[in-house]
């Protein structure tokens, strides 16, 4: 445990500062090349996109340093899977692909985890112990990476929400990994929170840069990969519940897998003073933001804070779940 402190500190510093230092020049580069998109929740504001390159640079730099210290195949699998997700997201940033593109290609991104064999097919549950599911677990890996990647992508709807949410969820996951005494993977997971935190500095309201699909898929996929190699799949799912609710509400109302940019009905509209309010449009999908706004109009910042409160609540439930992993009925 003591020998892990130095790698942890060094990788965290690198993760934070690579993103913190690299993002401002990336914003200038994107603005110079006119790679900006309209911030739909503000009047005539254009924002640079995507921030994925800065995020992946922070992740790769910090994880390579960790690999130099720890020599774990788990780290290699996480790096390759996460980089594949970044490439998939980057393609989608440049050209809007069909609804199936991301789920299908992200399933292939999960292959390095299987090839390196860095998983335990004993699925651990709180209170009740483990179940050995060798074949089923492979399917779980193939499913989990697209789910976590797309779930974080689907919550990237307001300034700062995706990165802020990932700060809360990933630090909750790191705490849980320490609780279940998986110290090495806990250290490996820390850069994800630090990268998200550094990016949040520029993504928070008013955003100077959006993560884009490349950024959101990178964060979500790395989260899923850590959950698998750390053997904390159930805990990770609990920490991600607000984003899961968002995806679930969206899918259960739209009833098909579709990119949110291609949905015609708008779940949220603006008041005259540019506050957000839920629409009465029956063709619009039900989303987490729409439910938060059901009680009346709120500012973008207030909606973001509401989502963060839900994320903290889920994080606490995840930590309780981690303690329950140590209890057996």
């Amino acid at each position, binding site marked *: 445990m003591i020998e892990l402190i130095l790698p942890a500190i060094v990788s965290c510093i690198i993760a934070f500062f690579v993103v913190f230092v690299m993002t401002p020049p990336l914003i200038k580069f994107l603005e110079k090349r006119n790679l900006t998109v309209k911030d739909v929740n503000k009047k005539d504001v254009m924002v640079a996109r995507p921030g994925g390159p800065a995020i992946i640079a922070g992740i790769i730099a910090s994880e390579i340093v960790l690999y130099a210290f720890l020599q774990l195949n788990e780290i290699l699998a996480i790096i390759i899977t996460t980089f594949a997700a970044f490439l998939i997201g980057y393609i989608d940033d440049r050209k809007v692909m069909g609804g199936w593109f991301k789920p299908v290609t992200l399933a292939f991104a999960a292959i390095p985890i299987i090839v390196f064999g860095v998983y335990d097919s004993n699925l651990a549950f709180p*209170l*009740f*112990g483990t*179940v050995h*599911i060798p*074949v089923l677990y492979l399917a779980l890996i193939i499913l989990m990476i697209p789910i976590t990647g797309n779930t974080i992508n689907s919550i990237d709807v307001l300034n700062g929400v995706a990165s802020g949410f990932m700060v809360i969820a990933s630090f909750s996951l790191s705490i849980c990994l320490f609780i279940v005494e998986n110290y090495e993977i806990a250290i490996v997971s820390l850069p994800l929170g630090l990268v998200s935190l550094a990016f949040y500095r520029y993504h928070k309201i008013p955003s100077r840069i959006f993560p884009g699909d490349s950024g959101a898929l990178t964060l979500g996929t790395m989260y899923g990969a850590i959950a698998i190699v750390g053997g904390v799949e159930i805990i990770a*799912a609990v920490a991600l519940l607000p984003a899961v609710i968002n995806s679930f509400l969206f899918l259960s109302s739209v009833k098909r897998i579709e990119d949110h940019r291609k949905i015609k009905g708008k779940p949220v509209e603006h008041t005259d003073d540019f506050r957000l309010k839920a629409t009465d449009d*029956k063709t*619009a999908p039900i989303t987490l933001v729409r*439910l938060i706004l059901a009680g009346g109009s709120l500012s973008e910042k207030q909606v973001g804070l509401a989502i963060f409160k839900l994320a903290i609540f889920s994080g606490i439930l995840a930590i309780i779940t981690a303690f329950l992993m140590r209890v057996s009925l």
Partner: protein
Amino acid sequence: MRSGLFGYLFAMWILILVGSGIVVTILGPISISGFGELNWIIGSSIKAIVAIILVVLWILILSKLKNWIFRKDITS
């Protein structure tokens, strides 16, 4: 901030815990014998089918819960 959302989150968490119990007590002990080398394939297939049924049930319960908790808010 709507308290219903916290309630929905909590309900999902409880469903996960209950589902865990069902998986461990029902899915875990399933083992097939008498088919030679096909034992593990048949056993895994049965486990997969039971798991899919459980997931579908989980989604159905969540849908009902969603309609119950947010029935005033959901218009579509």
